[in-house]
């Protein structure tokens, strides 16, 4: 089924929050998922796989210990920590590449690299275990064999994307990934009670007037 990018963003935001991330990270994960879908990459599948790892249960182990190179955590690095940090700290790229170790779902980083590219008005290259992605924030080229997890990621200034992926206005998520996101999203919905149905919204008056 085809979904609007707004639906992708809304579902990804709720799912990320439902998986235990902060609201701010959920907003960013949602924009990143949408951006990937607009590039024709199934961002919903990438996000669904990430959320199932449960990294949000001990976030301190999955974020960079410090901002200096290389970025690494006690455990695998979560792109919803490393990605936002990269777009927060675009100035670092002016001094040289940013290096990261043991990154899961590095595809999600690309949207944050896109933020950085737009701010710096430069194309940026992401090298993940030898596979390349290049973006200027709008256009993206991506290796067919870009890794699912990467031991070593480097983000640096690059040349403009060579050709680019077609922009998409709709997303066609894999059904199982979409179901996973909706299962996580459901965790943000309060169970219905008679009291909340009566008092939580509306007027409690008849609409047959």
């Amino acid at each position, binding site marked *: 089924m085809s979904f609007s990018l707004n639906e992708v963003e809304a579902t990804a935001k709720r799912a990320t929050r439902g998986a235990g991330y902060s609201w701010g990270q959920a907003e960013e994960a949602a924009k990143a998922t949408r951006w990937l879908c607009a590039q024709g990459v199934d961002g919903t599948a990438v996000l669904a796989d990430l959320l199932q790892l449960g990294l949000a249960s001990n976030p301190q182990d999955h974020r960079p210990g410090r901002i200096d190179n290389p970025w690494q955590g006690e455990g695998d690095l979560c792109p919803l920590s490393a990605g936002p940090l990269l777009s927060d700290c675009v100035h670092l790229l002016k001094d040289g590449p940013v290096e990261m170790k043991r990154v899961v779902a590095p595809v999600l980083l690309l949207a944050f690299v896109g933020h950085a590219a737009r701010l710096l008005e430069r194309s940026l290259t992401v090298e993940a275990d030898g596979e390349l992605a290049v973006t200027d924030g709008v256009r993206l080229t991506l290796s067919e064999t870009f890794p699912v997890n990467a031991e070593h990621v480097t983000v640096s200034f690059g040349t403009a994307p060579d050709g680019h992926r077609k922009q998409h206005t709709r997303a066609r998520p894999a059904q199982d990934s979409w179901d996973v996101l909706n299962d996580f999203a459901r965790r943000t919905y309060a169970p219905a*009670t008679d009291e909340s149905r009566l008092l*939580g*919204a509306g007027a409690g008056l008849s609409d047959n007037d």
Partner: protein
Amino acid sequence: METARTVISRRDPARVMRLSRLGSLHQCRLSFMRQLTCRMAREGWSFSRPVFDIDSKGVGHAVYTAHGPERAYSLVAFAHDLPPEKRSDRVIAEAWDATFALFDGIPDPDDIKRLSQNVPLQEAGRVSENELSLSRANRSVRLWAHVVDRLAAGLQPDLEQIYKVGYLMRTTAVYGSGKFGAADREKIADRDEVSAPFQAEMLSVYLTRVFVRDLVQHMARAKGGDQTAELDPEIARWLGIGNSTGLGMAPFIINHPVLFNNWIMVREEAIARVRSLKAATQTETSHFRQIFERSKLSISWWRSDHPIQVRKLGQLRADLKAISDHLTGDSLNYDYPWDRLVTWSETALSEEGQELLASLILEPYGDLVDGLVDCMADSNAGAFIIDGAMPICDVKQMIKGTFGWALDLDWSATENCARAWYVSEEKLEPRLGERFEEPIADYEQPLAPGRDAAAAYDALRGWDDEQPIAEFLLRHPEHRHTVRRLQMGRAAPYGEVHDNTISATVAPIDMLRAKLSFFGATHFDPRSDRWVRICMYAGAPYPDELTVENADFWVYPQVTA
């Protein structure tokens, strides 16, 4: 936004963005319905009704097409026979008197068939990238019966009853921007005719009004046969479209701080420009006086049974008297007459009266303020990205600037955090609950920016002022959404409500009214502290009547001597 050379600056956000004032806003010449009718008249849009296939029970479908200079848009309407026990304006309703989609272009029979299988289901159906909005409406049961019965008996409906209710049907949701599979906003954001906020939705409601007029005539004829009267166009004009709005609009204005800022800031800039005029011509002052008289007539039709609005209407009526008295003198003949008038109102009138006056002074000055409407959309996607290099001292300063009021509150006191916003699993209806009485805190939505800013300020204690905020956010991602909002606020000074949105006494209708006033709504009628009915397009010319002359001031009824 270009700032004109103004002597009087825009009003302080700390004054404007209080909930009680936002809950007292009135439509003005910048509002979205008036933008649409003016554009359609100026550009000479034409309208057609290619399909009206509705049976004697009122079941069937119809298509109304608006033809603009470059593109056409069609309302596809489905009429249903709804049992009274199913009639509910809530999100949790599952059936309606009528359902609609706004189609991008002119639908073919396959489109109609697809829509007929989905639009009547609303949230449980799917629409496509060819649709720009999805909506539904319920009848005002009493007025509907009155109009059908009178016309069927060969008589005209009683105008007083129409003034009191204002509409035959009220929409209970108008979904746009990609909801339930519809086209994303981006599809139309660059089209001149719908680039301003909510223009597709306003067009959908405008065409819905025509459909409802045609449907009531059709039902009257089905009942009355040959003796049926044709609804007098002068009476039909006072049939608007109602809207019944719940809590969803409150999260919207908190979740779109840049967009909301743009609406408020444009109105504030318009007010500042008019206040900065050194003198007013005779034509301008008489225009203003005339609009004020017409506005008084409209307000005389405004009814509400809710105690909050009853009190406010009492104040507003006293305000109208005070304004009338004030205008009988020569107050508009001095220098800076509009600034004098606004300054006078600040101590002489209630907030209802102050905001009415602030809207009305814009009316004679289309040339000065109408261009500002181009600044009302949100095209600043870059505002989302956090500047992590910003030193912590700057972030703290921004918190003190925008949320100083929140730093003074004791957020552990029950009355200051008594409520929590959440989404129910029942059709994802947005709700507001009692934090200490219901099991909802774990599901709380981030809709208390003041509380969150105060928490961020506390967490920043002990951090070095010169450290970049990125260092803090790396350790404290729970404050990312707050820092993002604060930084957005640099370009959006009117983006934040300067009040507690989770207090024991918060009235969400204040937030609903603020948004609805920019649509151009009138006759706000709260049904509870979290639910409001309004009227749209009452007085507006129908498509076959629309001219440049009547496209703008229709919201103010003509006063007959």
